[in-house]
């Protein structure tokens, strides 16, 4: 039996339709663009292949590419003059007239994964994500031979936007196959270069089932969202599913997996002939599931207590911290940044307070000694 070559299918980020309406997104220059293409989309295990980034409209900028887990960089991954590797990331400086950057990657023995990247244009003050070049699907199938190409699951992403502290960014996923139609995000500190990816998928095997009857599982991934978040997710549920499964509509909830399943505060917004529309509140992004309960006689299902509720954006509750296993390399939480001026101002205040305290102690000691000696003199 001929062993079948284990061919790797590199799932490219399936970005199809981008969010149109973003309330706080920066204006992206039409000309600025970074496009990624691969020398092969199905390298053999251990093979080295080349990723080419085509750059247009960026005069002074930076690019960071993140390769999937299992993929590695060779010892000298690029001939680009200015690059640096950090874990699964490789960063490039784009300095005038750089129109193409190539880097090499070594394919793992198995695994599939998605390449992702974002760029900054420092001169025009805009940013965005690295786009994938269009590829020929027929050619892709031929390369795989008998191995079918995994059907891309519905997904969509919104790229390279900024959110100012206290303001709300609304991301609309219109024209996609997603059940999520809108995400509204508020942050407690300004962030930029944010990417939100929504991808529907089957429940991972190691994750327990959500309670009730699941309608849909989907993942929301946030890149560069280094702030405390309060968000609202609008989603729809098709009416045929509700009726086919005899679902009590009031029990339809959005659940979030954060080590365990948590029911989110969900409310119905509207309905039409095709779907019912809901909105849920969350304090973070991870794996979600839409579920409902069957009708039980005439009595509605009691609403469970919500473990996750929206509060004002202050310090996060301990239960909101994601377990380490859910962190991806691109979601590292950064320490609070302070500018040099803020640091120096803080230092100034500390030094001033310390010296004032020392002076006060000395003065008090002086007068205490002076007084005691004076009383001693008077007594004498």
């Amino acid at each position, binding site marked *: 039996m001929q062993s079948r070559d284990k061919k790797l299918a590199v799932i490219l980020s399936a970005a199809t339709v981008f969010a149109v309406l973003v309330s706080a997104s920066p204006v992206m220059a039409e000309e600025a663009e970074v496009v990624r293409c691969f020398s092969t989309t199905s390298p053999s295990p251990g093979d080295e292949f080349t990723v080419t980034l085509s750059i247009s409209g960026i005069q*002074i900028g*930076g690019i960071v590419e993140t390769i999937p887990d299992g993929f590695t960089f060779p010892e000298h991954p690029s001939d680009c003059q200015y690059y640096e590797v950090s874990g699964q990331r490789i*960063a490039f400086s784009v300095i005038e007239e750089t129109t193409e950057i190539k880097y090499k990657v070594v394919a793992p023995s198995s695994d599939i994964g998605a390449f992702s990247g974002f760029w900054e244009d*420092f001169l025009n*003050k805009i940013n965005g994500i690295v786009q994938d070049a269009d590829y020929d699907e027929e050619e892709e199938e031929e390369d795989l031979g008998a191995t079918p190409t995994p059907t891309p699951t519905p997904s969509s992403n919104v790229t390279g936007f900024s959110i100012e502290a206290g303001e709300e960014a609304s991301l609309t996923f219109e024209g996609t196959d997603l059940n999520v139609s809108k995400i509204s995000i508020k942050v407690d500190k300004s962030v930029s270069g944010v990417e939100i990816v929504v991808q529907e998928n089957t429940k991972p095997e190691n994750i327990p089932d959500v309670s009730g009857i699941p309608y849909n599982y989907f993942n929301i991934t946030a890149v560069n969202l280094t702030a405390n978040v309060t968000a609202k997710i609008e989603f729809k549920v098709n009416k045929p599913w509700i009726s086919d499964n005899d679902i009590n509509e009031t029990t339809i909830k959005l659940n979030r997996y954060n080590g365990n399943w948590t029911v989110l505060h969900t409310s119905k917004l509207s309905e039409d002939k095709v779907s019912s529309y809901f909105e849920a509140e969350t304090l973070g992004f991870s794996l979600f599931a839409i579920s409902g309960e069957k009708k039980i006689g005439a009595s509605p299902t009691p609403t469970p207590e919500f473990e996750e509720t929206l509060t004002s954006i202050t310090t996060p509750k301990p239960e909101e911290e994601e377990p380490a296993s859910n962190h991806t390399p691109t979601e590292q939480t950064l320490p609070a940044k302070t500018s040099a*001026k803020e640091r120096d101002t803080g230092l100034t205040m500390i030094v001033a307070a310390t010296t004032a305290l020392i002076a006060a102690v000395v003065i008090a000691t002086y007068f205490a000694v*002076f007084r005691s000696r004076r009383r001693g003199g008077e007594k004498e």
Partner: protein
Amino acid sequence: MRKVLSCLLVMLLFASCLPLAVTATAARQTGIPGDTDEDDKLTEVELAGAILLFMLEKEGRLELNELRDAAHVYVYWDGEPRTIVDSVDRTVRIYKPIKRVVCTFPHHIEALRTLKVSKDTIVGVPSRLDTVFFPEFADVTCIGFSTGPDLEAILEIDPDIVLLAGDLGSSAMGDPDEDQEQLEAAGETVIRFTFNQVETIPEEIEKLGYVFEKEDEAEEFIDWYENILNSIKGKTSEVSPENKPTVYSEYLPYAISTADDEIIALAGGKDVFEGKNGDINKEEVMFEKPDIIIRVVWGIFAAVGGYGPDADDTAALKEVRDDIMSREELQNVTAVKNESVYIITSHIWTYLPYSGNKALIGLCYLAKWFHHVLFPDTELDPKAIHQEYLTRFQGLDIDLDDKGVFVYPEKKG
């Protein structure tokens, strides 16, 4: 023991002041962002290194706005700071694009408006701004009066630069030397311009335009300004001394200033008290018998005339003129006998703090009063020039046919 403790106390109190002074200085940043060797040259290697640090979110990285400034300096400034010499001969280096400026005199605001600098860039303004001439700055932080700005308030604003007045001589218009010293000790970048002298305004505008990267706007204004100035100078410079009218100029009864000398000379007049300051005796004026009397109406706390009154509301200025014309001691003076007594407001003069950058318009009026034959209305129209300045360079919707009183009488009597 008491003495020892006293000495120790004094030493400790003194030592406690030193960190405050040092950290106050160290709190400000200088140099081009990303210029790691601090040689005032941002190289490609330095910029690329700063970009990599930022993109990988590494320790010591620049902030996003700093990196954007670095990119701007690298591309548009050839990686070097912009250097100017201000009006008190100080060499000032600008290390990044200016986004926040504090103005201590209205003249600075007016100059920035001439250069079409965004209003959002101006983050501190002096108090008592003329709200008709500067209608858009009511919501900008006030840093106190021009002659004594609140330096703490300026530091709190944390601007990129502070504009102070140039050399004010012995005038009572504050102490910009002292202000400059204190601001620089706190790490602020100070540039000193005054914008009130006819002949130096073009150079100051050019330099300020360079600092704010508004060279085209500066050039447009300077071309317009020098065209007018040179047309006047070209004619008045050829007037023979005997044909120059003698001029007595006061800002209060029998109070004179050398600040009037230059503008009178440019207009082709001869200041009978040129080079003199202060109070004079009325007998001296009687003796000189000037051909023309100019009275500058000026008030440090309340300007007379200006953009507020209706254009035909010249009563206040007329009253001042009538007072001069009725002075018994001046009845035999040529200017009074010929009714060549003119009132001009400080808005179009060189005085501080209300004159602004419009002394050229005052010069136009003087030229016509001194030499109405050389400057007929068809060749020199001060009101039209003033209107163009307001509309084209200040962006103001003021119609001088309806509003504004600056001279009386407008034409030679």
